[in-house]
């Protein structure tokens, strides 16, 4: 059955069957195995998963910052309809920062401690935009104002260490915005911050998306941040997408047993539970990913087919889940309907 062609305009970012590998002494390990998704203009796609699920690697691959020996071993990444995964380094450098911005977790490591904030901003602006020093400085002040730094004109000549954690992250966001990118890869942008600052940064990101029509790929392990910010969410597990769909659907009615377990394991205020629902065991290491569905040893719904064949994303109503429960041809379904 062909999918309805309602998404007529080309997505801003399209990732097709992306595969990322790295060689080790014991053979080649596959860190990202055949994942596909797209981000529309102005859309916020959340990517969640546990550490090691491959969410940051996916982001790094898109902006061309995979550290060797990691390499893209298959598939393609299209930005605005053009392939960017095979561009030479110099061409990619032009896109990174100009069309695609990046925000990383720790603001202290993404800023150079030896240069003033203003110098780092004007340098970025002048690298990507045709501006003289004075115009770039004016733009830098505007950017700092935009991200809510009080006294922007005076703070321009301050060094990163003179800012607090929350303010530093605002500077990093200003840097990412410097050349008006159309897509921002935000990798755990609020993880290193305190809760009250985290709320401020989330609100800021949401406002910037709305005002600039910017698309964001928001990588985080915090489902709460996703719930507040994203339009759609992709749940990753062991280098694959387990479930993808509109945020509200995935959070309220998760389909993949892993997502169900993940949502159940988050403590919520107002829900009095003696015990949290827990998924026993741990995510497999890269060298030991089981055959079939990678989640099968921990899954409460597991049946024969899960141990043999690897599921791809299957439609389940509003979301898609990589789970054989949602394939009409699965025996389990047949058994269930026979009983029902």
């Amino acid at each position: 059955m062909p999918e309805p062609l309602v998404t007529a305009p080309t997505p801003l970012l399209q990732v097709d069957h992306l595969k990322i590998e790295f060689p080790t002494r014991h053979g080649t390990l596959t860190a990202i195995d055949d994942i596909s998704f797209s981000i529309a203009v102005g859309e916020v796609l959340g990517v969640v998963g546990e550490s090691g699920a491959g969410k940051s690697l996916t982001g790094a691959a898109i902006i061309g910052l995979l550290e060797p020996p990691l390499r893209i071993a298959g598939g393609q990444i299209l930005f605005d309809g053009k392939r960017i995964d095979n561009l030479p380094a110099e061409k990619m450098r032009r896109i990174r920062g100009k069309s695609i911005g990046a925000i990383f977790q720790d603001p202290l490591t993404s800023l150079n401690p030896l240069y003033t904030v203003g110098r780092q901003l004007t340098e970025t602006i002048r690298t990507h935009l045709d501006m003289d020093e004075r115009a770039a400085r004016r733009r830098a002040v505007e950017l700092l104002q935009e991200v809510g730094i009080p006294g922007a004109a005076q703070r321009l000549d301050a060094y990163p260490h003179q800012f607090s954690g929350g303010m530093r992250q605002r500077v990093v966001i200003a840097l990412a915005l410097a050349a008006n990118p159309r897509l921002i890869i935000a990798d755990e942008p609020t993880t290193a911050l305190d809760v009250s600052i985290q709320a401020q940064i989330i609100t800021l990101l949401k406002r910037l998306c709305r005002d600039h029509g910017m698309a964001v790929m928001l990588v985080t392990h915090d489902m709460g941040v996703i719930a507040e910010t994203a339009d759609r969410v992709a749940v990753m597990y062991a280098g694959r997408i387990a479930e993808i769909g509109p945020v509200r659907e995935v959070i309220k009615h998760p389909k993949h047993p892993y997502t169900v377990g993940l949502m159940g394991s988050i403590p919520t205020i107002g829900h009095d539970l003696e015990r949290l629902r827990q998924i026993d065991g741990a995510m497999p290491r890269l060298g030991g990913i089981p055959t079939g569905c990678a989640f099968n040893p921990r899954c409460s719904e597991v049946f024969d087919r899960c141990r043999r064949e690897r599921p791809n994303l299957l439609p389940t109503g509003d979301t898609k889940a990589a789970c054989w429960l949602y394939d009409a041809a699965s025996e389990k379904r047949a058994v269930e309907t026979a009983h029902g």
Partner: protein
Amino acid sequence: MVKLATAQPGVLVPDRPLLQVTDLTRHFDVSAPWLTRLVGGGKRQTLKAVDGVDFEIERGKTFSLVGESGCGKSTVARLIVGLYGPSRGRVEVDGVDLAGLKTRAEQAPLKRRVQMIFQDPFASLNPRWRVKDIIAEPIRTHKLLDSPAAVRARVGELLSQVKLTPADGDKYPHEFSGGQRQRISIARALASNPEFLVCDEPTSALDVSVQAQILNLMKDLQRRLGLTYLFISHNLAVIYHVSDRVGVMYLGRLVEVADAKKLFARPRHPYTRLLLDTIPDLEMTGRARIPVAGEVPNPINPPSGCAFHPRCAFANERCRVERPNLRIADGTLVACHAVEEGRLPEMALAVPAA
């Protein structure tokens, strides 16, 4: 005196809280070096990390401290286990003040009863030691068992208690995941048969699904072994899940202490309300949140009066001048002039009342 100090663990005094903290204060000298001060004319500077904190924990219960980085919650934890000495005030475990015991030999029985679990399971286990030696260290230090065979058996038992296998004892910490390492930390903490565990952000470094495993394990152990917890976290949902009673800290002081259910259903202090309002909305109610401007001020030079007043919408002249103390309001302890004067409006609750 010494007799009394080394109170027999078996002797239970009813109604006495297991932990009693009175006017606990810890100041750190953060001045520039002497010569720099002499040349540059700088003054001595004191960081009041913990500034007059009072609370108690009943036997078998969980008391939690919540607050943002720099509020002093970890310093309180370290003061209680004796990693720091207090500048002022007392920490009494079962009626005994650790600071009153001078020699290591006198301190040992008390230290055996109080153990700590740290935040980072990658930094708190010695990478050069096998897991069985890490867990056996408290047993050997406190000379709880004599024969190597008995120690081995006990280590195996402890590993099973935290849902690892006795065979895991032969491995090194790097062979375990974050969640498994935190289990090893818990096993080590339990090795000396403590009654009281101080848990400083025990799940903050873990993924949510692993966090659920550890929280469930800690609750099981509490029920089975009758443990008392001081639990420290910045994650309010985790606090809600584990706590009987909660203390909210801001810049070295407690601003509100209440039963967990009550605190979340009816927060009184404006800072508690701010914290509750920052919780990401997993229920997807689409409520508009009002982000609170401002950040935690520099603790070296805290604001006058109520330290929260520059960020508080309800602050008036009195708040800027006079520091509020904890007072009882409807069974909750709150340090806020606005609450005391009854000029604080009820909060539109973001969270369904428990």
